[in-house]
């Protein structure tokens, strides 16, 4: 079994690494620029050909180049956003769940408020006040998606708090931080891994929605989410526009999931 765990970790890291490499190197070696329009092809999307392996879009731009360039935004924002969101959510959830009482009450009411404020008007307000930088974008995305992790980790911690092994550790004089970090969180790793997996997809898709609202990257800079959104009118007649970005988002989530699986089996009690 351990070898399979290691395999899933390796495969996950390998796939993610390959995609990152393609995103960094790909646009540099591509014969086309990501925003280069071909006057001859402008008008309708063209199907894959020898010159354009994944076809072109309505503006005669090379899809493969745009996909690789889009990976820069989507992978960095997707992974960073998910990491920040899951990390923060886990912290809040663990604190609320283990401390209980007033701390729990206050933190959970905070998540209630966060969940009640709809993203759309909030983003419009923020976008009207500040110009986004990539780091800010990551923080905003994380700010919009951390709550589910917090709630699920809290539920897990609350239920594990009374488990025999925790009671035993406490009886041995282990401090609360050590109990949470060393004994409870590893056992909640399954749920945390799932929320991280969900957060990656959520962050990648959210990035395109934020760009659309004027907060984030703007055309012609591509991202997988925006490539997918722009392909909407062409779902049926030009599937080469929608299938590749969708597939890449899927593969990213799959890779994160594999890594999560591998890490979880390694750390579980």
């Amino acid at each position, binding site marked *: 079994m351990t070898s399979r765990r290691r395999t899933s970790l390796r495969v996950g890291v390998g796939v993610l690494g390959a995609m990152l490499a393609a995103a960094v190197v790909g646009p540099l070696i591509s014969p086309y620029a990501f925003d280069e*329009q071909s006057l001859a092809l*402008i*008008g309708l999307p063209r199907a894959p050909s020898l010159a354009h392996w994944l076809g072109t879009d309505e503006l005669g731009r090379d899809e493969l180049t745009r996909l690789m360039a889009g990976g820069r935004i989507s992978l960095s924002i997707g992974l960073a956003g998910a990491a920040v969101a899951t990390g923060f959510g886990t912290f809040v959830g663990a604190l609320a769940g283990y401390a209980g009482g007033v701390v729990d009450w206050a933190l959970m009411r905070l998540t209630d408020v966060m969940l009640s404020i709809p993203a759309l008007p909030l983003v*419009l307000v923020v976008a009207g006040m500040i110009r986004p930088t990539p780091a800010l974008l990551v923080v905003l995305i994380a700010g919009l998606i951390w709550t589910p992790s917090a709630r699920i980790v809290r539920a897990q911690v609350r239920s594990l708090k009374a488990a025999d092994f925790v009671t035993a550790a406490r009886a041995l004089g282990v401090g609360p931080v050590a109990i949470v970090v060393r004994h409870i969180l590893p056992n909640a790793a399954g749920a945390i891994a799932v929320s991280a997996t969900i957060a990656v997809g959520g962050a990648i898709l959210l990035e395109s929605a934020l760009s659309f609202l004027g907060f984030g990257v703007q055309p012609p800079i591509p991202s997988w989410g925006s490539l997918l959104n722009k392909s909407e009118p062409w779902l*049926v007649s030009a599937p080469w526009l929608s299938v590749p970005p969708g597939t890449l988002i899927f593969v990213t989530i799959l890779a994160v999931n594999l890594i999560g699986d591998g890490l979880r089996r390694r750390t579980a009690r």
Partner: protein
Amino acid sequence: MLATVAGPGCGPARRRDDNTLVVGLTYDLDTLNVYSTGFLGDVEAAVVEGLLAPDAHARYVPVLAITVPTVANGGIVVAPDGRGMTITYKLREGVRWHDGAPFTAADVAFTWRAVRNPAFVAESKDGAEAIVAIDTPDPFTVVCRYDRITPTFAATLFTFGILPKHLLDGVDLNTSAYNERPVGTGPFMVKEFRRGQYVVTERNPLYWRRDAAGRAFPAIDRLIFKIIPNSNTLLTQLRSGELDLVTQTPYDQAKQMRHVAGVELLRSPLLSWQHLDFNFRNPTLRDPVVRRAIAHAIDRSVLVRVNGGFQTPVKSVVVPIFDFYDPDAPEHRYDPVEARRLLDAAGYTVQPDGVRARGAARLAYRFVCQAGKGDDELAQQVILAQLKAIGIAATADNRTGVAYRQARYKGDYDLNYSSWVTGVDPVYSRFFATHGANNGQGYSNPAMDHILARMEGTLDPGERRRAAFEMQHLLAIDLPTIPLTSGAAVVSMSERLRGFTPNPTNMTPFVGCADWRLA
């Protein structure tokens, strides 16, 4: 079964054999009152009639009036002091409201009073405020006294529609049931209005118009408006035969509709123009050389091609369908060599990063258009590439709906791509006068203000045309905006529909729906 099948494997049979036409609307209806809706009145145009209406050639024709009043036919009399005017409408006799009550001059006078009533919250009261009194010497004569010369009188009040006095006198129009089930004199009557879903209208058996053979219009029994906010779903419903007519098919969808069996595409010119606006608050854009260079950098044919070939290139803000259009107005042809030469000569030289600059003044701009309008975003990206080709860097800063409009009117941009749709008699001072309500660019030229005031303060068609020509010449020199293309609505309709006439005005093609037939 009378069904015409759309070919095997292409979906369910075009189902109806009951003389019903189903129309797709892309927006959710707010109210069916022509005076308070925020949308073009597609449904209203089938139900409510005005005294006049614009026809397929954007010319006014009489509807509930017998003639279009003009100075020549004595319908318009200018006051001796030249300050006001009197317009007399002769009304059609024998017209009845949907409930059978007769239509008379009292209804016209009531409409004016109701719209002018300060308690009524309406988006447009323009025409109502210029009228100071209305006399009805007999049931079929309406005499309106205006306190100012209003050449654009036909574009307002009584053209939108007439309200029934016998149902609405003394009623609060803000909350009246009329807003959901309007009663008019039009060819169709509202039967059912389900919010967020559909409006069912039925043939008005009392309708006053007859065809040449004496048969009563309309020929269709039911006209149904279905609300489908997602444009892909709209296309799906056309393909599956669940819809028969969409009057404004988005271009990216229309490009794909050319070969769908059972659906016909009709290109219907619109009184609209797409344009690139400059913000005069930006110091380099205030330099006429930069504006001229940009004008030479844009290849309109690519803009047309990228949006499916439905638009036509234009060089003037006056759409060529109008007689105010000046074919001799100066024009900036696509000539990137000339554009580069102009910039070089003015000292804007290409820097190592590929962007031109003169001293600290870098030719880099923030370029807005409305996010989510696919057609606009495509055009914007073509322009971005064409500007890059002459060494000007523009970066998109697109916003959605209301946020975009705010940027547009407050001048929160350097470059702006968008379009205007107008009525038959566009009031150009709105866009180009120093204090024009839609002038968000900070453009101001006293000479232009003067020309516009002349154009909009006289009833003399010759004088108005001369002023319009001067305006076009001055716009080509000042270049506050570059007119790019003129729009066209793409009508997707079932091939069973006959007698459909496109209407280029903002009154929508439904003003002509009485003539439609289903084969």
